[in-house]
């Protein structure tokens, strides 16, 4: 399903270290993937997996003291090498990010209209009136009625769902080529989640926009994105076409995530919900060998001594010594701790 032309975004062995408790720790470790034009990639992982940091590293929006290695190329141009001015250009025109908590990310003391128009007025020298027209249009595309009046209101006058839609509108107003969505629906309740997802999906397809969709919800990512990548302990452990993930997920972690979610069409015989024992590790907490070894039901001695690399399998990649067997389901007879 990957496009044959040069991918829009290429992430090449990206590593990120953050100062934690005074010492630099690795939170993202050698992550590589690419996103083609018009393609949606889901980036899935639990907290601490490094998925948010990856997105921020792509945008060069890391906290002070962080350092990165590896490269990020957008349309061939290396992002880490950009000058401050080019970086601003790039951020204001070609890429946009939607954040998890809209109320924290929109300045509460300024009207929404300001938030929407800023990008246009500050950098691109579009006139104020023209900017407001576009802002009203943007609000309409996310199905917010009475757009002109809404522009003059403040964020406290919007509900969470509406506010997230405003943020999406603000992201799309610049007509970016790539949208980074960092858990855009996590802070919303289930019904509004669906609404917002539907809007994002619809708009993305309309505009042929590429998207990286970050979430902890594997099913959601698989439903919305063309390809899904799974991260654990700062590394990419699997990358597949979304529709194949259910059939032959080749990494035990992926399997575990799929099995741990309650679903109406699960086999009745299974009975219990399979929770993954232990807690998710951050990049710097991972031991030698496979990061998932301690929690993996199929762990063998080799898993602790040798770290599995991403190997191609079934039209995707997986980082497991026993990827083939996991994908085929032949190792399932091992000692599953449910």
């Amino acid at each position: 399903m990957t496009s044959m032309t040069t991918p829009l975004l290429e992430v090449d062995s990206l590593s990120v270290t953050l100062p934690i408790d005074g010492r630099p720790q690795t939170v993202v470790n050698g992550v590589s993937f690419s996103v083609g034009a018009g393609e949606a990639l889901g980036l899935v992982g639990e907290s601490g997996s490094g998925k948010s940091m990856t997105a921020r590293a792509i945008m060069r929006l890391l906290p002070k003291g962080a350092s990165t290695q590896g490269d990020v190329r957008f349309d061939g141009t290396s992002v880490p090498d950009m000058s401050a001015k080019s970086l601003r250009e790039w951020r204001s025109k070609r890429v946009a990010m939607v954040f998890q908590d809209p109320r924290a990310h929109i300045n509460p003391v300024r009207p929404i209209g300001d938030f929407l128009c800023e990008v246009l007025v500050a950098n691109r020298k579009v006139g104020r009136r023209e900017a407001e027209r576009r802002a009203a249009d943007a609000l309409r595309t996310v199905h917010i009625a009475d757009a002109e009046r809404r522009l003059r209101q403040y964020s406290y006058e919007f509900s969470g769902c509406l506010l997230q839609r405003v943020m999406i509108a603000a992201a799309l107003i610049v007509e970016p080529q790539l949208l980074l969505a960092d858990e855009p629906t996590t802070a919303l309740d289930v019904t509004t989640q669906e609404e917002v997802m539907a809007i994002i999906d619809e708009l993305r397809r309309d505009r042929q926009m590429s998207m990286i969709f970050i979430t902890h919800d594997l099913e959601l990512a698989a439903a919305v994105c063309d390809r899904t990548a799974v991260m654990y302990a700062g590394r990419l452990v699997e990358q597949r076409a979304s529709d194949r993930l259910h059939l032959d997920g080749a990494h035990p972690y992926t399997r575990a995530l799929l099995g741990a979610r309650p679903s109406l069409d699960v086999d009745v015989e299974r009975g219990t919900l399979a929770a993954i024992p232990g807690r998710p590790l951050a990049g710097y907490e991972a031991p030698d060998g496979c990061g998932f070894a301690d929690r993996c039901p199929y762990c063998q001695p080799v898993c602790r001594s040798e770290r599995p690399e991403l190997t191609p399998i079934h039209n995707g990649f997986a980082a497991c010594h026993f990827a083939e067997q996991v994908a085929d389901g032949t190792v399932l007879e091992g000692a599953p701790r449910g």
Partner: protein
Amino acid sequence: MLTLVVASVVIYGLLFISPGDPATLLVGGGKPNPEVVARIHQEYHLDDPFFSQYGRWATGVLRGDLGRSMAYRDDVSHLLLGRIPNTLLLVLFAGVLIVIFGIGGGTLAGLRGGRVETAVTVGSSVAMAFPTFVVAVFLIAIFSTQLSWFPVFGAGQGLGDKLWHLTLPAISLALAYIAWVARVTQVSVRGELGSEHVDAARSRGLPNRWIVRRHVLRNASPPILAVSGLMIAGLFAGTAVAEEAFGIDGIGSLLVDSAAKQDLAVVQILSLMMVAAFVVVNTVVDVVNVALDPRQAVKGRDS
């Protein structure tokens, strides 16, 4: 406002709660003979019920008749007229210093971080413990014996000369507040810089100057404003000390001198002025707060 009226009643009533016959006080202490006392009673209607006396006083004030000082043998309004400019100048001067060094310094420290921030933090901790009269004494010690850059007494004549004379008093008045304001500003700006909406603004490629101007500063201002309100009240109190210390003829020193002489007519008027100023400043702060942060109108004042 209601507060003002109530306060004025209390202030006027002060005359009566002080020990001794009000007439004695009006004369300025000592033991006047009974005839004089009786005459004063008559002249000042001291035997009338409280509220009619109060009414007479209050209407007099509103009409511009501020009473007469016994100690200075002069109309209170006359006394005030000559001194108000000095005090106003002093307060304004100090205010300017506070804004430039306090808010300016604090903002710089918050934005730049690093050495500037450490310097401001340490400096403010030290300076906050230096009350006006201590700074005054230090400054007098330095500038009267070692350096002769500034005069240490009096208010001078003419605007330029006055500013020169008022430099040291303004510094002694302002120093502790500069420290306080700088500290509050720095913390507030720092906090805003790290906030998520600033992050979001950066992610959209907005220029740094724009972000600082439209997102950081405005959002950081409520605490600074709250502090400013308190500070202005303190400045007025501080003028009493600064003017006394430097021998300046202003409202503050008038208050102190008449308090020492127990010249209640003057003290009453001056305290009325203070309360009025206090109420006005508080109201202005409230209004500006709402203008800066529309949420305040919804939230209300009690937090």
